[in-house]
């Protein structure tokens, strides 16, 4: 595990931050290249922190080099909060960014509110590389989003406290895990209903009906006494996981890998039921006036070489088939797994949003 993603060390992230500030300095001092590039520029949102830093350092400059379009990156918060901001801005006729990276549940919510610009696949030949599962469409079949990256939420543990790597999500239910777990606090970002269904009910079909979901929730309620922390903020859990304060839980495979590469006693395991596979899509705000350049950007990002670059530098899993990339076995294994993933039931989270959030809050609060 320590071997994984050796491409990103703390040093390179720090260098990325330094690089970012150098660009900012150049902007202030009126560096001519920047001024010229401003004529053709795109505002692009990426999750703030390490994720955006890696994009700023390794990905966006490649795009500018290839197309001459400057990128102004914007740190965006997690999917839900960002979607509310885009929606509020759209009501005022504005676009906070031209392009944003949007998670699947939020893509659908945004589509229901017609927030996304319709895209033209004919202008983006490389989009044909992207696997169909990662293409987002409006109800009328028109294209509104293209898979940017995919990531996994896996079972993570502290190697100092938990000597043997867990193998199954069933580990969460074990009595010896009392007060040892950190889990995501919201129904719509933890995907624990999917995990419980796959682990204890033989698959996600049980989530078709309200009775089925209630059964799954009852099973999930058994985990409550093991949970020390229900977190909304990733930093909160990451700190506790590294120190061993909370030695096990669900977390993002890419960031856990970074922590391990930095020498922290952290491991990320793909359980035998599969890691939770979520993905982010590039979506163009309906209020953006730079739709042509946005097409160029999405086309650029859909190239297999760039998808491979993302895996190496950002630690995400490609949205194009692996065979099209030149990723080695080791490189692919560090960002993904051969085990069939758990794909969240986005339809359920969308159609039963309010009922689920009410039930969920009652489940964990009571």
């Amino acid at each position: 595990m320590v071997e994984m993603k050796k491409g990103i060390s703390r040093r390179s992230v720090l260098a990325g931050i330094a690089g970012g500030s150098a660009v900012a300095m150049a902007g202030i001092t009126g560096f001519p290249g920047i001024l010229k590039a401003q004529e053709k520029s795109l505002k692009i949102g990426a999750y703030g922190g390490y994720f955006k830093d890696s994009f700023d350092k390794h990905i966006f400059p490649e795009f500018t080099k290839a197309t001459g379009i400057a990128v102004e990156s914007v740190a965006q918060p997690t999917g839900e909060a960002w979607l509310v901001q885009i929606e509020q801005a759209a009501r005022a006729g504005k676009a906070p960014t031209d392009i944003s990276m949007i998670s699947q549940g939020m893509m659908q919510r945004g589509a229901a509110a017609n927030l996304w610009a319709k895209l033209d696949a004919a202008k983006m030949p490389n989009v044909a590389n992207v696997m169909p599962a990662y293409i987002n469409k409006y109800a009328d079949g028109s294209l509104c989003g293209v898979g940017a990256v995919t990531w996994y939420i896996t079972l993570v543990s502290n190697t100092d406290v938990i000597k043997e790597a867990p193998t199954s999500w069933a580990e969460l239910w074990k009595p010896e895990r009392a007060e040892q777990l950190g889990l995501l606090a919201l129904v719509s970002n933890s995907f624990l209903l999917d995990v419980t269904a796959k682990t204890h009910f033989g698959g996600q079909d049980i989530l078709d009906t309200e009775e089925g979901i209630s059964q799954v929730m009852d099973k999930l309620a058994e985990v409550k006494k093991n949970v020390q922390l229900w977190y909304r903020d990733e930093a909160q859990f990451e700190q506790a996981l590294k120190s061993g304060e909370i030695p096990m839980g669900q977390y993002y495979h890419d960031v856990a890998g970074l922590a391990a590469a930095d020498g922290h006693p952290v491991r990320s395991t793909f359980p035998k039921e599969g890691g939770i596979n979520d993905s982010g899509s590039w979506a163009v705000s309906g209020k953006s006036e730079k739709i042509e350049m946005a097409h160029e950007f999405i086309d650029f990002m859909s190239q297999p070489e760039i998808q491979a670059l993302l895996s190496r530098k950002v630690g995400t899993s490609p949205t194009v088939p692996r065979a099209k990339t030149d990723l080695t076995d080791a490189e692919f294994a560090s960002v993904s797994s051969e085990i069939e993933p758990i794909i969240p039931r986005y339809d359920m989270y969308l159609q039963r949003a309010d009922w689920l959030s009410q039930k969920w809050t009652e489940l964990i609060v009571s």
Partner: protein
Amino acid sequence: MKIKPGKFSDYAAIGFPAGMLTVFFVIPFGIMIAMSFFQRVQGAFYEPAFVFENYARFLSTFFAGILGFSVGLAALVAVVSVLLAFPFTYILTRMARQTQVVWLVFLLSVLSLSEVLIGFGWSTLLSRTAGITNLLVSLGIMDKPMSLSPSFGAVMTGMVYQTFPYTVLVLYPALSRLDPSLVEAARTLGSGPARSFLNVVVPALRNSIVSTLIMVFVFALGCYLLPQLLGKPSHWTLSVLITDQAIYQSNMPFAAAMAVFLVLVSLSLVAISLLYGKKENAG
């Protein structure tokens, strides 16, 4: 002697604050009330409408429990803060000017810390791996370090820590203006320091104490990060659930309805205590 304002221009001075209050409080509050009647569109956002379902959803034993807990927690934080801050401020005002300034600057610097810093700070201090229990273990008081957070105690500690400097600063002017001859008279008549504090100082500043309690209560009621960072889900306040609805569920109408409820409850509690205070003063 009071001079009664006669002409219209005499009221001009309050024009500016009134305008600011309208722009930054009345209008946003009005928008929030309007939004609380909007129609939630599940799986998307909301549409302008006039429906009561957001309020109907709130009227359940579940939310009544959360509201009760939030109000109770804020009240307890207010009482504990004032109990600690009142004697502290009294002693502070009796100190040399120089010492007072040092203390006040220190308290102001604590006040400048954000809720996030306070939350993360206390969660580390109360943790098993790096917390104060390790100190107690090395002193031989405890057998092994333990985790004190998340817990109700941790939430209380964090919130009182946050409100304490605020409480001191609100009480400070009243206590420093207190006529020292009152206490001197009590002492001359043979009452000890503790007795003169309780029988003279406290009753003399009853109104300041009540208004401080109210201010700290309202301040604590809006707290939403500390219960999240230091508490278990059962310690989450209504403010936490409002945030969840507004930010994570994109359910602005329901969040607005809950917020209106919270404001109404706190306003009525404030009104009751003011009314009670007035009666006391009249009698």
